[in-house]
């Protein structure tokens, strides 16, 4: 066993993602002179903000060995309800808080079925995916809600200290999630449950309550992302967020969080979201047709996981 090889693996395992992102940026900046400009970088950050917020919530669920497929539909439902309340006369701030509360409640609904009824997260949130979508369509009769108060537009298009508000919201939520995962007892419990639920239970950790929390948190994240999207579109669409769950899961797994739970973090998820965002952006700049973009995106996800798998298996 040579020292150099061990170090090399360590480096790939720890910084491989960042290196991949940097390599991607270098390649794209040589291919397009419009890529590495301040305005384009801000543009990328704004584009990924919605996915990154959802993915941060998803990270918490996945570290706890769950999965949340309902986030896209949940985003649509909380969006139309929040917008509906605001249009109906509730002050915009309260409408947004109500939407966030609804998202948390719907996540709790998912979590209750997982934690207390023992139904697989995949199934529970698959049901949530159709239920919440149906509810959003029923609530609006299939029509978008527009004519929103100005606060929504501020959220979608405002700037603060040179950065768009959606980017600030994303950064704030990522930091919040990071703090919860790394610095609180609750976060520790999420890792423990994802790593070995039985050991966590025998250690006296309230496993069900913690699982409930992870889904509630993911629901809140999707609702927050929904407010940003509603602001961007300046309307709430009952059909918004279709397939968002897949983008979020892709960001999480490309970011190195294990689908088997117990490992990972939100920093990786940010990098994962950035890699996906940069690829999308780069291909747009290079005028790659969108059909091919999808193929490339899928290929990148497979490639990232393959590399991670090789590094992980060789380490043990």
């Amino acid at each position: 066993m040579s020292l150099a090889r061990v170090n090399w693996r360590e480096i790939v395992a720890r910084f491989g993602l960042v290196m991949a992102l940097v390599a991607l940026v270098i390649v794209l900046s040589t291919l397009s002179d419009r890529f590495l400009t301040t305005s384009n970088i801000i543009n990328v950050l704004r584009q990924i903000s919605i996915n990154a917020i959802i993915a941060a919530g998803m990270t918490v669920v996945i570290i706890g060995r769950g999965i949340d497929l309902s986030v896209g539909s949940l985003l649509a439902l909380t969006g139309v309800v929040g917008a509906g309340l605001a249009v109906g006369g509730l002050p915009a701030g309260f409408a947004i808080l109500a939407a966030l509360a609804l998202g948390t409640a719907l996540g709790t609904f998912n979590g209750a079925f997982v934690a207390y009824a023992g139904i697989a997260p995949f199934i529970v949130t698959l049901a949530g995916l159709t239920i919440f979508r149906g509810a959003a369509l029923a609530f609006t009769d299939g029509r978008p809600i527009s004519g929103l108060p100005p606060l929504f537009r501020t959220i979608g298009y405002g700037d603060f200290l040179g950065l768009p508000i959606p980017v600030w919201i994303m950064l704030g939520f990522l930091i919040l999630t990071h703090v919860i995962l790394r610095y609180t007892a609750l976060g520790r419990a999420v890792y423990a449950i994802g790593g070995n639920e039985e050991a966590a239970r025998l250690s006296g950790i309230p496993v069900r309550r913690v699982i409930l929390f992870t889904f509630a948190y993911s629901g809140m994240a999707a609702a927050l992302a929904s407010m940003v999207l509603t602001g961007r579109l300046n309307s709430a669409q009952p059909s918004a967020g279709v397939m968002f769950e897949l983008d979020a899961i892709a960001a999480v797994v490309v970011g190195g969080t294990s689908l088997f739970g117990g490992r990972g973090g939100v920093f990786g998820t940010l990098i994962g979201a950035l890699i996906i965002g940069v690829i999308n952006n780069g291909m747009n700049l290079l005028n790659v047709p969108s059909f091919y973009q999808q193929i490339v995106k899928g290929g990148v996800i497979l490639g990232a996981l393959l590399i991670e798998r090789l590094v992980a298996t060789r380490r043990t």
Partner: protein
Amino acid sequence: MALLDMTGIHKRFGQVSALADVDFDLEAGEVHALVGENGAGKSTLMKVLAGVQRADSGTMTLAGSVVRFGSVNEAQAHGVVMVYQELALVPSLSVAENLFLGKLPKVVGYGALFERARRLLTRVELEVDPGTEVARLSIGEKQLVEIARALAREGRILVLDEPTAALSATESDRLFAIIDKVKQGGVAVVYISHRLEEVFRIADRVTVLRDGERVGTRTVADTSADEIVQLMVGKSVRHHERTPRTTERTLGTFEASGPGLASMSISLRAGEIVGLAGVIGSGRERILPTLFGLGGSARWAGESVRGPREAIRRGIVLVPSDRKTQGLVVELSVEENVSLATLSRLQRFGFMDRKREREQTRRWIDRLALRPPDPRKSVRELSGGNQQKVVIAKALATEPEVLLLDEPTRGVDVGARAELYDVIDDLSQRGLGLVLSSSDSEELLRLSDRILVFRGGRVTAELLPPFAYEEVVAHVTGARQLA
């Protein structure tokens, strides 16, 4: 000529010699029991026979020709079939499909398949429909399906590894009848068991292993349970070595009952180590999880214990029997594992108090002499003994009054084992009450202040020091009941 002749079998695992120059032979149509304490080498010998492991040296002669099995399939092709304690059936498939698993025709004709299955099931007197899903069978029925499967493969040698561990008395009786029938058909049966009454009931010959060596083979008709126990424990009779630390202060009394457990009470004094002895299936392996609130019903000091959280709050903590699946989160570090049961104590307004956490970890790393003494080390990279220390540290960090130790040295090497014994001794000196459940009689002798022997879901004997090794073994194996 013997059907099987194993001579001079050696097998080492690293530094440890698991089998040393072992001879073993089988006649067609006999039941040959293989007995010995845990770690004596019974399972290893049978794994060599069944092709699971290769011997380092020695020869095997099967029906006159020398054989050397490189795989289970090869052994099965020669008619050697092992029925494992952990049953090797596919629960979601039907009985018939399981019987012919791996030997199914490419196109499965269910009529013919079921007919063949029915004939086989008759041979083991199992009256279930061949289309029944295996998951719906009882453990006893599954075992019979396994035996039928062995017969389907035209097994000449059938190895049964503690087949009655999970069976009821009537299921066991039924199994013995089938073994007898199989034997009449010319099949040789190796019967591994810790229960001497079974050995004397069904075996023709018995071979005793001790510390990887064969210490004797006897014809059952010409031996006695006492002689077998003597062979198992060896000549020197070891007595209790521990200076009792027990004080007069009673900590409380456990009352427990549950499936497979008669209602019982165990009182515990400060500094006392109560040893629990019994074979698998005696109820001994269920008692500690029950006391910790994991199924069945338990009371401590008059109030019921309904789950791990409540148990820990009341000062009772379990070191579970399987550290990989129940004790550790291998993805996490030493420190994160040690803190797991004390998260609520190590937080302030929800945030982990990193300084206190590090202090706590350091304290336990020092006290248990964890190596390497690095709180950030991943537990995956630790040796078995040190992993076990992490589980114990996690338990002790809750500052319990009562420590329940379930097989604390399983899979731990000799050196680390001695260290763990010192730790356990030290804990009793500090006034903890300990309940130690173990399948290792020597461990019980070394550590216990008294030993409760379990048989058939109840405590059948209470042994007090000085303990005699053969007395413990005689009680556990049931030789005492035979005498």
